């Protein structure tokens, strides 16, 4: 145990160090030196995040850190950021971007100079178990994704000769982004959160745009526009909190803001909805899938979008008992249901992952809206398990995308024969997303229990949505485990960077499920107890059963695989049955005597789950709910 000074050093290290590394990476021209720097930086970041865990006292600690210089430099950087966004908006003629930026700027300048200058902020930084959990996700998963990116970007540029090689900027943005994420989860000063929030928006914008073709630029601006709208709402929320509630501290606003906290909380939640790509904003995330895959893994599944739900969980207590909170939970439920159904009709692997991400964040939002101790407990579980399994999935798809030259699931036939190790990681990732005894199933189970006591309609939504996830994940898994002999192994040319990350994340996906009871009792339950006075925990008998299933899988799978691979020799091999008209194993004679090849494709059930129809429906319903949510707090 160390004193608060130890904490604050580590926190400042985590926020500032990646920013320093990013500048360093931008300025070093030699690739091998850059790589060394990146490796050392990532080790330091992981160590920093783990150190935080060791230093933790379990409760919330707040820090005073007031300096004119911090305020001024932040203001200067913010102005520079806005100027850059304005320039981009004008250059690409996106006037909505210009409008939102000008409004934000005007609002904040007015607020700082005229309306409420110099509000005293006692505690600018804080740390609690929830922010430690997020810091671990950002530090550990984020670092490994950055390592993966070193190998990925090399091949990316070999395959996209038309794309300008800006990899220094790429890594600059990735590390800068990590810095901003740490900033968000440790800041208590709303202005600071807002600053880091805008940094992640701009990083995301530039990284989506990386390929610089028309599609990427369009997608990048779509993300920028929606997130700037969210940022605008955030700015209005801050101004309102400063002027009426008289505070700019997140914890004080939520705890003591009373009636004045409701309106800013709703606006900040609105901003969180945009950031975490909930309906009606979800289209920016699916379009952002044009970005290089490490970006999708880091920003668009495991961390940045989590910032959105993080802030929603933080402000939700201020909305508790209002109609706005109910709207929030319905919005999350609607998003989960609609996106899970749409995912059935998608054959692009990254889009399936994107829709699944949005859906799972929807569950977190729904939990935040419900706001009971069980719900918040499940929300944190969802965040943790989702971050690990989904980043693994994205990184697997990143490799297959290069080796198969396609992002389509339909091109992943026989993947287990072509890329056995990547397939194994992918199977772990998919299982991690929906199957007992893995993490997401545990958290969905907890979520279901939290929903039932609050409102059975939510439980019904969850039942339907889960059935849809079962369908699209299993058919994907079925695609990759189909077996055919005599195919060439494509795995040999995967870089060690990518292997390392894939292996670590695979073990983590299994590992977080095994240590889940410890994770819950040591980190999550103390946090929930601090908030609510009591904390739910899982029945011990059920934990034992879950562990038995896990152990059963972990022992049976390798044993059975080895048995079939080497020991089982007593069999007769035959061709598949093709109506008795076989030519060989996959070809058969058609009705007119011609040779036909049996070509096996998955179902996408487009007549039921077409993206356009469901999205339009979801969008209208979600806009309606958002209007209600904001409307009820205004009146």
């Amino acid at each position, binding site marked *: 145990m160390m004193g608060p000074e130890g904490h604050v050093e580590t926190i400042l290290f985590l926020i500032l160090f990646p920013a320093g590394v990013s500048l360093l990476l931008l300025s070093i021209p030699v690739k091998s030196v850059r790589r060394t720097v990146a490796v050392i930086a990532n080790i330091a970041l992981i160590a920093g995040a783990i150190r935080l865990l060791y230093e933790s006292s379990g409760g919330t600690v707040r820090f005073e850190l007031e300096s004119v210089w911090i305020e001024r430099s932040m203001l200067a950087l913010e102005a520079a950021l806005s100027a850059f966004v304005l320039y981009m908006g004008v250059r690409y003629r996106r006037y909505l971007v210009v409008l939102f930026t000008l409004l934000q700027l005007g609002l904040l300048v007015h607020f700082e100079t005229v309306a409420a200058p110099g509000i005293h902020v006692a505690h600018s930084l804080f740390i609690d178990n929830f922010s430690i959990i997020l810091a671990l996700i950002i530090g550990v998963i984020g670092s490994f994704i950055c390592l993966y990116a070193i190998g990925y970007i090399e091949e990316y540029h070999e395959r996209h000769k038309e794309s300008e090689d800006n990899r220094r900027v790429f890594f600059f943005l990735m590390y800068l982004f990590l810095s901003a994420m740490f900033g968000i989860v440790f800041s208590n000063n709303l202005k600071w959160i807002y600053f880091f929030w805008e940094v992640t928006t701009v990083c995301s914008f530039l990284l989506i745009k990386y390929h610089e073709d028309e599609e990427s630029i369009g997608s990048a601006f779509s993300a920028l526009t929606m997130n700037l709208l969210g940022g605008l709402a955030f700015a209005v929320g801050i101004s309102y909190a400063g002027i009426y509630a008289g505070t700019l501290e997140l914890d004080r606003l939520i705890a003591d803001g009373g009636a004045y906290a409701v309106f800013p909380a709703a606006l900040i939640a609105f901003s969180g909805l945009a950031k975490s790509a909930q309906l009606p904003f979800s289209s920016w995330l699916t379009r952002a899938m044009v970005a290089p895959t490490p970006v999708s893994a880091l920003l668009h599944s495991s961390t940045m979008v989590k910032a959105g739900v993080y802030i929603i969980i933080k402000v939700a207590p201020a909305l508790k008992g209002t109609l706005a909170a109910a709207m929030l939970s319905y919005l999350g439920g609607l998003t989960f249901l609609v996106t899970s159904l749409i995912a059935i009709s998608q054959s692009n692997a990254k889009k399936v992952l994107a829709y699944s991400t949005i859906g799972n964040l929807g569950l977190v939002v729904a939990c935040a809206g419900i706001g009971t101790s069980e719900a918040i407990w499940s929300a944190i579980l969802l965040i943790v398990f989702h971050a690990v399994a989904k980043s693994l999935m994205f990184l697997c798809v990143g490799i297959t995308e290069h080796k198969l030259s396609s992002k389509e699931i339909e091109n992943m036939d*026989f993947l287990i024969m072509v890329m056995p190790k990547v397939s194994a990681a992918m199977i772990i990732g998919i299982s991690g997303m929906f*199957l*007992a005894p893995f993490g997401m*199933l545990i958290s969905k*189970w907890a979520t*279901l*229990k939290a929903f*039932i006591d609050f*409102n*059975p*309609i939510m*439980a*019904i939504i969850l*039942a*339907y949505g*889960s*059935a849809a996830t*079962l*369908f699209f994940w*299993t*058919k994907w*898994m*079925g*695609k990759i*485990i*189909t*077996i*055919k*002999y005599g195919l060439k192994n494509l795995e040999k040319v995967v870089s060690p960077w990518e292997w390392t990350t894939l292996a670590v994340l695979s073990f983590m996906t299994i590992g977080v499920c095994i240590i889940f009871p410890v994770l819950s009792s040591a980190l999550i339950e103390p946090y929930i107890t601090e908030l609510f006075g009591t904390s739910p925990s899982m*029945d011990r*008998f*059920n934990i034992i*059963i*879950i562990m038995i*299933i896990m152990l*059963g899988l972990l022992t*049976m*799978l390798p044993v*059975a*695989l080895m048995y*079939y*691979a080497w020991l*089982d020799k*007593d*069999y*007769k*091999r*035959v061709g*598949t*049955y*093709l*109506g008795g008209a076989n030519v060989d*194993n*996959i070809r058969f004679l058609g009705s007119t005597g011609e040779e036909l090849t*049996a070509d*096996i494709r*998955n*179902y996408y*059930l487009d007549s*039921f789950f077409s993206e356009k129809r469901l999205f339009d429906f979801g969008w209208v319903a979600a806009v309606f709910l958002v209007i209600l949510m904001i409307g009820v707090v205004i009146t």
Partner: protein
Amino acid sequence: MTPIDYYIHLDNIHLKAAIYIVLAPLLGGLLAGIDRKLSARMQGRIGPPILQPFYDVLKLFQKEKIIVNKFQNFNVILFFVFMIFTGSLFFLGGDLLLVIFALTLAGVFFALAGFSVNSPYCHLGAERELIQMMSYDPMIILVAVGMYLVTGTFRVDAIALYDKPLILFLPGVFLGYLHVLTIKLRKSPFDLSMSAHAHQELVSGLKTEFSGTTLAMIEIGHWYENVLLLGIIYLFFSFNSAVGVAAMLLLYFLEIVIDNTNARFKWELTFKSTWVVTALFGAANIIILYFAIRP
């Protein structure tokens, strides 16, 4: 005290599981035999002896091992093991939701077995199996939700000891469950993914390429599953064990009648009708119940 009451009041969960593991395949096989006999009589045939399913399975164990690829039987073994595990968990009185999730796990392995072979018939069977799973899954979860709303617990042993008849609180959920039970028992009109009947368009569907011991495991796995499914029926009537047993037998007979009087649906109709029935009976029942019992 009937044997069932005696079983429910057993304190030793290991013994409970062991009894299930030994008795379930016998009961399941016997039910399959009765099923075939009754179906034959309904169709004006004499039908096989009641013990025929056992003879069939024993014979399957003696067959030569014929496979398409080395790993195709892998998932079937996992299906078999997890099906027994799931049933044991239910009969030793575990958490009903966990039972459902473990059942899903077993079901996923079964579907994956079909995918792994790379045969068009198996593959289509597996796809249809998944559509069936997606169709019935919400209703199965709502069964657990409904029972929780009434009894306040997910523990099967506690639900079985609940003194009031659950059926009175959950009539809609029960009807919804009957609908998905037809799918789960692989009865017409919902026997899309595989069928014992001769000459369907998918040959034998999912199990086309499985033979010998593996096919025997699929059969026995489904016997275990059928006993589990009937166990869930029992929970609706568990206030009185005689009524519970009568309900199980009667409803199984009803399923046989449905099987013999309906032509197979297409998957579209199967999926649509099941989700609609789930909403109209299951979901509506739960919402009404929630507002009725809310203080």
